[in-house]
């Protein structure tokens, strides 16, 4: 009987996160990170943004978006630490740091989205 590995599941989550990061990452970062702060276009007003955020569909979608991107980043970063620094002997620690971080981040995201008034 094959040892049940969690790797396939992690890879699926990584891929989903990669697709979402690729499709939506650039535009979010462009607008809120560059365009609005620099005043090239006027940002949405607070009321409107709040009404979008508090919609249940938006909350669910954003939670999935945040969680999957975090898992994507964690997974990739874990392999970079292995390959780039050759610290495979710190295996368990790296896994804990990366995936643990992703879990914590997702919990924070869930909390923040839950608490949108």
């Amino acid at each position, binding site marked *: 009987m*094959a*040892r049940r*590995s969690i*790797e*396939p*599941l992690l*890879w*699926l989550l990584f*891929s989903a996160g990669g697709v979402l990061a690729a499709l939506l990452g650039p535009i979010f970062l462009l607008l809120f990170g560059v365009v609005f702060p620099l005043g090239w276009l006027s940002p949405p007003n607070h009321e409107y943004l709040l009404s979008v955020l508090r919609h249940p569909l938006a909350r669910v979608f954003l939670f999935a978006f945040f969680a999957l991107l975090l898992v994507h980043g964690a997974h*990739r970063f874990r*392999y970079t630490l*292995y*390959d780039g620094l*050759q610290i*495979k002997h710190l295996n368990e620690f790296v896994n804990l740091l990366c995936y643990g971080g992703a879990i914590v981040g997702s919990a924070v995201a869930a909390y923040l989205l839950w608490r949108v008034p």
Partner: protein
Amino acid sequence: MPDRITLEVARYRPENESAISFQQYEVPCHKEWVVLDGLNYVKDQLDGTLTYRWSCRMGVCGSCGMNVNGEPKLTCATFLADYSPGPVRVEPMTNFPVIRDLVVEIGDFMRKLTEVKPWIVRKEEKPLSEGEYRQTPQELDEYKQFSMCINCLLCYAACPVYGLEPDFIGPAAIALAQRYNLDGRDEGASERLEILSQHEGIWGCTFVGECTKVCPKDVDPAGAIQRYKLSASLASLKRLLMPWSVP
């Protein structure tokens, strides 16, 4: 084009040495000569002790893989004139232990290749009386690309993961497993899944893509591995969510 070129060849003689040293040989540089011709000239005329593997000299046997100026190449398919005025650095392939001079130890690959069962696996053999298996050209196209592998191991030399993680099964072995998984006559996909799904089976691969770049037969092992990751993880998911559906 000058008519001579210098080869800087790695030497390793385990009887006396514990490290690689380089020796320079000046060889003729004819328009149609390849690096292998240069090495054969060295062995015939200059230094009979030089040790290296070669066979068909036409890019089908996979014996003559070496690092030429840092890149894994088949020396029978690499023209000397392209490196003029030289020098041309010839080293044993990366990521393999060196036995002597340019000869590397490939036992690890041979063992891993056998593990992935690169043959048609049938639950029940078809009796001879039923005749041959028939395949349409479309069915052949599904796996033909992966069947072109000549086991030259250039992909292993190019793959950084193989160099860093000794348990990684590696590009060619996975591509060859896919060659059989995608062959309509084969019924061994689940057997291969057990081997390949282990942590370092295919999951060590981070899609660097160098293997596909250096492959002399356009096998595209990187593509084979990513496709397999998708099918293997979906199969794992299916087994997880619907355990009754797996025999």
